[in-house]
């Protein structure tokens, strides 16, 4: 039974926090999406410098959110951390490689004597921008489609394929979410350029590219969403904890949690509204519509797969090795301790917002790039 600060309540609370961090991470991957245009959007070096500096001033937020997401998952659901990271080794390693090369690329690319030349670091940004969102999308898709692992009685994981996570790339549904996240991050990146760069030529071409990227985004996202709603899902018996397949489980979850469904629909509509405003108006702020929509959509999807007696990390090899927020969580004491600590989160968000506003009070211009002391 769920009472105030019961273990069940805290498990759901921490699933909400982890999901919120994941949804913020997907939004903040506009940095990665923007990086993918490093060779295709700018027509000259100044435009390239403006583009790189637009995203270079925000890469730490994405990075920090990823690290905090990892830390929060470890703290709240350590069995997922142990199972997925220790099992799907190659997918997570590829994601990490792509993030290592991002951080230094910004700082090193324009510095004299950087040994490998500016182009190398620009390619690093392109690799991170493409691989990061795509692979994170594929990894998250396995929350819905399952993974090949088995846990023993001491909860130690053994991966059942020698590919250690790469087999996820063979699933069309996983690929579709991977590409959907990639194209969404590209769209958000372009929208962020509209928001932050003062250059009419760049703005005009960004709007065109948003329209072009919307098509593959919609195709892949709709494919994933429709197949998800129509598919069997991994349900968990609340009494015994046994996991079994249930027809239309995810559709049922949406219907049984109307608030989550409303959040999902509102999120999708906001993303589309932001795209509409970008393409068919002169609005400079659509990133805030689509960004909010992204957060709501991802949050709704993760709440849907974590709540309502659902396995959020299903095992395809042994259903009862599947992870639920009940069997994968930390102890009551740890979750309660962290519950009190989480009261600081609004304060953290407040100072981030304040600092962000202070730095972003003016759009990046050619003039600023010529006079700024710290240019990437």
């Amino acid at each position: 039974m769920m009472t105030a600060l019961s273990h069940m309540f805290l498990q759901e609370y921490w699933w909400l926090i982890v999901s919120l961090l994941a949804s913020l991470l997907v939004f903040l991957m506009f940095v990665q999406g923007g990086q993918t245009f490093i060779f295709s959007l700018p027509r000259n070096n100044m435009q390239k410098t403006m583009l790189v500096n637009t995203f270079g001033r925000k890469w730490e937020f994405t990075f920090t959110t990823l690290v905090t997401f990892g830390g929060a998952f470890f703290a709240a659901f350590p069995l997922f951390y142990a199972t997925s990271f220790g099992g799907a080794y190659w997918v997570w390693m590829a994601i990490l490689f792509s993030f290592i090369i991002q951080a230094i690329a910004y700082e090193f690319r324009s510095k004299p004597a950087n040994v490998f030349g500016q182009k190398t670091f620009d390619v690093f940004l392109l690799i991170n921008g493409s691989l990061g969102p795509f692979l994170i999308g594929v990894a998250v898709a396995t929350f819905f489609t399952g993974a090949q692992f088995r846990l023993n009685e001491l909860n130690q994981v053994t991966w059942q394929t020698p590919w250690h996570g790469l087999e996820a790339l063979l699933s069309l549904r996983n690929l579709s979410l991977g590409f959907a996240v990639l194209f969404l991050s590209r769209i958000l990146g372009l929208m962020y350029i509209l928001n932050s760069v003062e250059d009419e030529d760049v703005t005009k071409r960004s709007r065109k590219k948003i329209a072009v990227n919307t098509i593959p985004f919609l195709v892949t996202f709709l494919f994933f969403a429709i197949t998800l709603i129509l598919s069997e899902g991994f349900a968990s018996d609340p009494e015994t904890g046994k996991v079994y397949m249930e027809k239309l489980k995810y559709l049922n979850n949406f219907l049984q949690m109307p608030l989550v469904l409303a959040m999902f629909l509102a999120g999708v509509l906001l993303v589309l509204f932001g795209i509409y405003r970008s393409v068919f108006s002169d609005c400079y702020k659509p990133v805030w519509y689509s960004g909010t929509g992204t957060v709501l959509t991802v949050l709704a999807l993760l709440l849907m797969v974590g709540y309502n007696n659902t396995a959020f990390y299903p095992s395809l090899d042994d259903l009862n090795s599947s992870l639920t927020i009940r069997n994968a969580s930390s102890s009551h004491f740890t979750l309660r301790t962290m519950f009190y600590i989480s009261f600081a989160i609004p304060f953290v968000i407040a100072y981030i917002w304040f600092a962000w506003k202070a730095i972003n009070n003016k759009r990046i211009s050619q003039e600023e790039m010529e006079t700024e002391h710290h240019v990437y």
Partner: protein
Amino acid sequence: MIDSVDLSLVDWSRAQFALTAIYHWLFVPLTLGITFIIAMMETLYVKTGDEEWKRITKFWMKLFGINFAIGVSTGIILEFEFGTNWSNYSWFVGDIFGAPLAIEGIFAFFLESTFIAVMFFGWNKVSKKFHLLSTWLVAIGANLSALWILVANAWMQNPVGMVFNPDTARNEMQDFWAILFNPVAVDKFLHTITSGFVLASIFVIGVSSWFLLKNRNHLLAYRSIIIASVFGVISSVFIIYTGDTSARTLAAVQPVKFAAFEALYEGTANAGLVTVGALRKSDETIGDLTVNEFIFKIEIPGFLSVMTTGDREAYVPGIKDYIYGNPEMGILPAAEKIERGRHARDVLFDYKKAKEAGDNEAIAALRTRFDDPDFIQNYFAYFGYAFLNGPEDIVPNVPISFYSFHIMVALGFFFLLLFALSLFFVLKGDLEKHRWFLYIALWSIPLPYIASELGWVVAEMGRQPWIIQDLMPVSVAVSHLSASSVKTTFILFAILFTALLIAEISIMVRQVKTKSNP
């Protein structure tokens, strides 16, 4: 239940984690210290309005930025490697270890990453005071992030504040404050951040000395040396003090590690502290372990006894006391600990079997064992010993521990001397006349890096065979991967990190060389 583990997998996993940690630690200490030095310089700028202080601040800030990015890059790997390479460990301790990591992210990383943007890009966008506040918050955030990861690491050295849950087969947090104020954590945090302060101070003095040797940027060099020398002297004194308290704590909670630092095989009263010495392999063996002996050593008589207990006549147990036991000192033989650990493991496995079979009577009987203080203190406390092959396995690599520890300590005293001389000459106003000192300061830049890395070698190699002292050996903690997979990622990381390090050094050197006179 616990599959046999491929030893080459354990070795490659250890090598990969060590590689990542060593590279990460090349960059972090400078961040820990230089952020405070920069904050002090900017404070002087805001207080005096002297534009030269602003230029000095910006110069060191540029070097900090180059260093910071690569530190962040290597740091993200470390966090996720707990899961990717040590998944059994992640579950066994995740209930405790995860919380500090999450707090680190929420409190420290966001503080650092938010205000670093203001620090670099806010010069013309926010007020002077807000900019200064941001710089101080970056310094505080960087050091706070060190606190939480060191709390987690300290728990691995001295697990406290938890209870084992046989149902989930893991340790669970019982007392958050005991974990936060673990004596090892307090010592480790203070010792580690001050090592960063020392390193940054030497970095600043070394680079500034180069300017003076080249007869350039005099004002920048002098002002930087004054700040770094004062900061360095204070930090050096403090690091020696925290080193001393760390050693005392260590002698109590990780006595085998402590004995390995001193290569003390035979316990003795009135034990001397080796100041200088060299080891070689002797003919004596204990199981597979070859005992080392001193070729020569210079000792301070009785000082090791004083360091550990405050009493010159106190008995300091040696490695053999912990292998064979010492009833007078109340030390159990390692073989007995192995037996007790295996008993605890058998009870756990029997409990798991009873649960699987639904044998309620057996479940109830076995479950009570884990609530019995006698079983917990006298058997489960040695759970990790169940996985050792023999008593000699409890001994870490003695030569590595001994040399790492002694070189680190010697360098610590050298740094104090360096800072004192630097401060003396600069206050006297004739620093430039002592070119020999400027050369020493310049060539000393790598030394704190060596000392700092050796500190981690001492802490982590000295803890072997444990990943969590007495509870889990590294061989059990490792993820079930193929050794070839880990070997491949090790090679990729080694190439990538080395390439990035080369680029970083090259950029730093160029930034210093091209720093023009104002």
